[in-house]
């Protein structure tokens, strides 16, 4: 289990964090990994903070609990930085990826004692440019793939193309935009600490 990677997603109901965690599980599955992708369920409300999780490993995963010491954290909405302890248990060898336009200093002050790496991406900008609408989950998915290095980028891009063709079989017009969002996000995710 040495190569087990654990990821925790923080988003708001309706932003697609759960879908992103399932897509990440899918992509890792397609590279031959053992995967888990699951949200923490409650009575979901649009806009309320939600959590979703991924485990990815090259050996079977038997553990069935939430993740308390993740290797990576993805924050889909930077407003959550004020209301959720997003870095709780986050390993310092890991990283946090935040959808934000805030500066490095602002983020560092919000994350207080956290000493690990911080990456940012403006998923709103990427999404508006690629899709004309604000769907932060696709850019955030690409960002965490890039930051975590759980799979080769080219394989990921190819795999997502296949997934989108399947997922959006009845809405083929959104495939190109989503692929553009993936590619832009892979380029634009930035390490600030």
């Amino acid at each position, binding site marked *: 289990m040495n190569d087990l990677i654990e990821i925790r997603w923080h988003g708001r109901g309706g932003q697609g964090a759960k879908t992103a965690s399932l897509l990440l599980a899918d992509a890792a599955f397609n590279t031959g990994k053992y995967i888990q992708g699951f949200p923490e369920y409650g009575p979901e409300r649009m806009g309320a903070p939600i959590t979703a999780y991924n485990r990815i490993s090259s050996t079977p995963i038997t*553990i069935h*609990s*939430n993740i*308390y010491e993740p290797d990576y954290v993805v924050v889909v909405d930077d407003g959550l930085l004020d209301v959720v302890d997003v870095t709780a248990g986050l390993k310092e060898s890991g990283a946090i990826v935040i959808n934000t336009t805030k500066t490095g200093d602002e983020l560092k002050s919000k994350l207080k004692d956290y000493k690990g790496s911080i990456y940012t991406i403006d998923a709103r900008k990427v999404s508006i440019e690629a899709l004309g609408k604000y769907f932060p989950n696709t850019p955030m998915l690409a960002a965490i793939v890039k930051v975590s290095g759980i799979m080769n980028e080219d394989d990921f891009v190819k795999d997502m193309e296949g997934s989108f063709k399947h997922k959006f079989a009845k809405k083929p017009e959104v495939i190109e935009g989503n692929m553009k969002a993936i590619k832009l996000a892979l380029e634009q995710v930035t390490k600030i600490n």
Partner: protein
Amino acid sequence: MGIRERLSGNEAAAIAMKQINPDVVAAFPITPSTEIPQYFSTFVSNGEVDTEFVAVESEHSAMTACIGAEAAGARAMTATSANGLSFMWEQIYIASSLRLPIVMSLVNRAVSGPLNINNDHSDAMGVRDAGWIMLFSESNQEAYDNLLMAHRIAEHKDVQLPLMVCQDGFITSHSIENIELLEDDKVKSFIGEYKPEHYLLNRDEPIAVGPLDVQAYLFEHKYQQAEAMRNAKKVIAEVSKDFEELTGRKYSFFEEYKLDDAEIAIVCMNSTAGTTKFVVDELRSKGIKAGLLKIRMFRPFPSEEIAKALSHLKAVAVLDKSDSLNGAGGALFEDITSAMYTNKAQVPVINYVYGIGGRDTTSTDIESVYTDLAEIATNGGTNDFYRYLGLRK
């Protein structure tokens, strides 16, 4: 060799039902099992199965429709959770006493109240004496595999009892994980055709189903039900062996994980067994002889076999994901301790009620149980045997 897939536990159950292609499915949606009839109704409308799907107006009607269908000679399935099962209650007993091999997916959830939609085993524990065979599943794979074995067990002439396959709501039902599926044709030939001995639509043998059973007969009929449950053990063993030959996946009455040389062990069911395996591996790497006994077959209860498997231990903890609220201990604890007492296995046993209403059970929680067990193994038994795990006090 099999099809590598990734599915949630609910998807896995729905796919199993698609491959089984039963004659009738009657179901009413309830969280967290809703997706099972939802996916299945898609298979129906796409023509992937030729099942008659009955979108009933309640769970009571779902079970009643399954009873009618099975009595007529059809293969019937359903899925539910928590209060859905509570609402079926009356019909649950009718199904088993009429000896109708209905198969149900029970996606375990806390029974209200107060209202809670998350996982525990209070729904299943409420029907443990209702005459249904009950198989528990650690993962999506086991939920799928148990469903594929279900009809062969339930419909066997020496059994003829309804069967429910349990899995943990949300924890496995909504988690996407790897799974190995069987090809459709292999499932079809493994399960075979349903040929009931007596059924309502047999014009050559007019029968009545469910008439009044007076003082002169009911006792004997109940004895026959009890005999059928005893017979089920042998049939479950046979079918599991055939399944292993087909898939390479071995299923016994219970799984012994690093148990044979263990000194301390946990007994539990469903997804917590997976977390416990993770902890057992960690403890073993530190030289601690920890083990696990995971119950798969809860009804019939394999008393003698369990007592034997636990008899060499220095201390055992039974984890109940439902509190019996009886001042004495959880349902599994009472079954395990009675099995050990009657089979003269003298080992200190303690009980933990845990995971109620979806309270997450972490590897740290499980590790604390082994720490308690190590203490008992060193210092001997305790009178403080009715405990709670993960409870805020």
